[in-house]
């Protein structure tokens, strides 16, 4: 869908819209009435616009806010009260009086002068208060934001046993502080951009200046400027623009994380992060295949245990992807691989059910996916009903009635459990295991081997910003094996901090 929109916009701009694209920047008027009229007409039929007119000595002034976006107490104490009780020099020009108020009266920490309506509008929409005064062709934007936002809580999708319980929230400023608190280094840069022609969503690019590759940074900025979306409502909207052009791949080249600690770990390796206002996660790029198997818990546990879990994750990945396909292939075409006792049981189970093995496996996989999706969407109060229905319908009744075989059910159950070991890979694995099951049922072990090799080739062909997606594994780097299949101790890991862009390029 995004490609379609993008292509249309790239190829042709519809006639008549050229004027709309070239926006006129209107300077702020010196007349208070004119300014107020502009804002009132822009926010016509909006119930949240608040205009408070008042007089400062003999001068007309006003503050404009959006209801619910400002902290009214701070507004009253730090803005209105000082202004109204200020001792303005009466004989001075209005501009000088304005300057006096701006520099010596107001007790807010952040304020910005806007010289055009667009900047003023952006500030107002961001939750700032606009201060206007008759005769001054400027608008003072004062940061007294106080809209309700979710408090910092534990991330939902990336759960750890040990380690931080803080996760990103929707407010970009809070997210910035979460990162800044962890890397107290002036080399940590935050660059602001605005994306979305209508939503004007603020985003923030962050990186470590002494670690990041300037080439990759420029590339990312260029791609972000090419984003031609109207609305950017979550970080995932940016992903297609950040990946390589025209590359369809099941695996993401960028990572979206809810954890500030993980994100800080990644940018310390020279990666670039993107925060999107309104999204409780950060985008990190470039992302490598081996990192799907790394979690924060690995670095909080002892190395031997972390290594064991790491190997378990790789095994789970292969089980969740290949097991149904191999089971169907061997059961249908190459049963000689099984020991005699197993083949006996398998044959008996297939004989008891009306469907071929492939069909049976696909049915159970689909039923499982339906249950999983239903479990996600159901309200919590009804959630336990899904597990009861699932256990009764599939676990008990289907097997007892002879519609589904017990070995097949066991295989799919094991597949499902294994896929939850690496939740980030659930999407590609869910699709791949269906494809492998079909190929296994149609072409046997040979088909699975060929498809597996093709999948490997597809993964190995992927490059992100010049960095091979399968780097560390292939192109093989022995030194980096310390954190791929095993997790070496901190003494080893801290020897040479690797930069992701220093992996061998073009190999």
């Amino acid at each position, binding site marked *: 869908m995004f490609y379609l929109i993008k292509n249309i916009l790239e190829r042709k701009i519809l006639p008549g819209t050229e004027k709309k694209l070239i926006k006129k920047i209107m300077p702020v008027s010196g007349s208070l009435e004119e300014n107020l009229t502009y804002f009132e007409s822009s926010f016509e039929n909006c119930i949240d616009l608040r205009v408070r007119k008042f007089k400062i000595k003999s001068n007309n002034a006003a503050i404009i806010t959006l209801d619910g976006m400002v902290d009214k107490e701070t507004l009253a104490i730090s803005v209105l009260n000082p202004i109204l009780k200020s001792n303005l020099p009466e004989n001075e020009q209005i501009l000088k009086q304005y300057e006096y108020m701006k520099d010596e009266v107001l007790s807010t920490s952040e304020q910005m002068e806007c010289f055009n309506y667009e900047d003023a509008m952006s500030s107002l929409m961001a939750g700032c208060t606009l201060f206007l005064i008759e005769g001054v062709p400027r608008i003072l934007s004062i940061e007294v934001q106080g809209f309700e936002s979710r408090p910092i809580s534990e991330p939902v999708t990336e759960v750890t046993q040990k380690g931080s319980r803080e996760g990103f929230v929707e407010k970009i400023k809070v997210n910035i502080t979460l990162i800044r608190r962890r890397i107290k280094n002036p080399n940590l840069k935050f660059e602001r951009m605005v994306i979305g022609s209508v939503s004007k969503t603020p985003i923030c690019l962050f990186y470590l200046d002494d670690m990041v590759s300037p080439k990759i940074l420029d590339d990312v900025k260029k791609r972000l400027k090419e984003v031609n979306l109207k609305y950017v409502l979550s970080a995932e909207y940016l992903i297609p623009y950040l990946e390589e052009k025209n590359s369809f791949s099941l695996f993401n080249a960028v990572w979206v994380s809810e954890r500030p600690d993980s994100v800080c770990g990644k940018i310390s390796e020279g990666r670039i992060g993107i925060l999107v206002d309104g999204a409780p996660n950060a985008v990190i790029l470039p992302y490598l295949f081996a990192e799907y198997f790394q979690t924060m818990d690995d670095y909080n546990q002892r190395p031997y245990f972390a290594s064991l879990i790491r190997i378990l994750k790789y095994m789970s990945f292969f089980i969740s992807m290949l097991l149904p396909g191999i089971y169907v292939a061997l059961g249908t075409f190459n049963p*000689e691989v099984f020991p*005699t006792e197993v083949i006996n049981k398998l044959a008996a189970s297939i004989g008891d059910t009306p469907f071929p093995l492939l069909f049976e496996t696909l049915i159970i996989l689909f039923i499982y996916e339906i249950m999983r999706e239903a479990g996600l969407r159901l309200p919590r109060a009804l959630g336990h009903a899904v597990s009861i229905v699932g256990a009764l319908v599939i676990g008990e009744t289907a097997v007892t009635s002879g519609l589904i075989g017990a070995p097949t059910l066991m295989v799919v159950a094991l597949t499902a459990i294994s896929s939850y070991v690496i939740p980030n890979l659930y999407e590609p694995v869910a699709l791949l295991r269906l494809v492998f099951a079909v190929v296994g049922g*149609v072409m046997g072990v040979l088909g699975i081997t060929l498809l597996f090799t093709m999948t490997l080739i597809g993964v190995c062909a992927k490059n992100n910003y010049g960095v091979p997606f399968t780097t560390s594994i292939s192109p093989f780097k022995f030194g980096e094996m310390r954190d791929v299949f095993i997790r070496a101790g901190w003494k080893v890991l801290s020897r040479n901090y690797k930069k992701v862009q220093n992996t061998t390029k073009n190999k």
Partner: protein
Amino acid sequence: MKKVSIIIISFLLLVFISGCMQVAQVNEKLIIQAMGVDLSDEEYIITVQALDVESAGGKDLVAAKKVKIFKARGYSIQDAMVNIKSQSGGKPIYSQAILLIMGEEIAKSGVGVFIDFFIRNYDFSPGVNVLVARGKACDILTTKIDEKIITAEKLASISKEGMDANNSVNSNMGQFIGDVKCENRGAIAGYIMSEELDEKNALVVDKIAFFNGDKLVGVLDPEESKGYLFIKGKSFGISDLVYSPDFLDITYTASNSKSKIKVYLQEDKLSVSIDMNVSLYVSESNVGVNCESDSSNIESLVSDRIKDLAKKAIKKSIIDNKTDIFGFSCRFLKFNFQYVKENDLDLVEMLQDAEYNIKVKTKLVSAKSY
């Protein structure tokens, strides 16, 4: 270009579905565990023991081990198997086969005629056990013990037990066919027979059938089989009874043995030197025998006995039937290949006139009780 390739791939996906059209599920196949081959009136009789899949479901482990027997005639093995396929309604799978039994008659007439079926069929593993049946193979495969047909697994373990008891050998297809094709070595296989003890059937594998070329020429009796195993150095666990005028009888068990064989030419005549080192222990003896003080006598007795067994085995196979089952010819050939080739020697014939020097050194390791 992308749209075209997507359309082509979608079309091909439909074509790929045809890959599963002719597939028979595993329960629709005939999973063969053992095969028996007999000859009768110039026709092959094939007896097949297959898994009874229908009764294998559920938790009943006994039912899981039930087998079905199919029997068919044919002018060739393939012909007979086609008949079995039509009887059973399932495509035969040979990959789970663990046993091949040949009837005595067909073994005597020559295995070369029918063995080609098993060689060409890649499903048949070279690790399949090969046995020769006394009488007919179908009798062995249809033997009932406690009202149940003996399974191939049980038969294979009996032949393995025979090996452990060291009265027989565990010969597999690869080894058997390799020996049949070898000009200088005779093939061997376990000899299985059914005995009736107290109105109950029992299957015993305690003899060795040996082949000259592809024809069965003789069977080593239990004593000769032991002699063969001592010569080959595979006598671990062999038990034997030794008679002596002084002690009456002692049963010994060999715990370890090594055998060094040298074959060399001495004045145009072959000499075979066999040095055996056998460790043994007395497992049974008469009351009153003091094994510790009489150990040298016991060792000497056992040495003579082993020598005797070895001579019997050599006489039966090489001298009487011109079949070298011990590999003496191959040993000589390995180091004197050019000489044999140049002089066009018939090594097996030379072995018939060869001089055999058998030395046995025994050591009583443990008497177990005093």
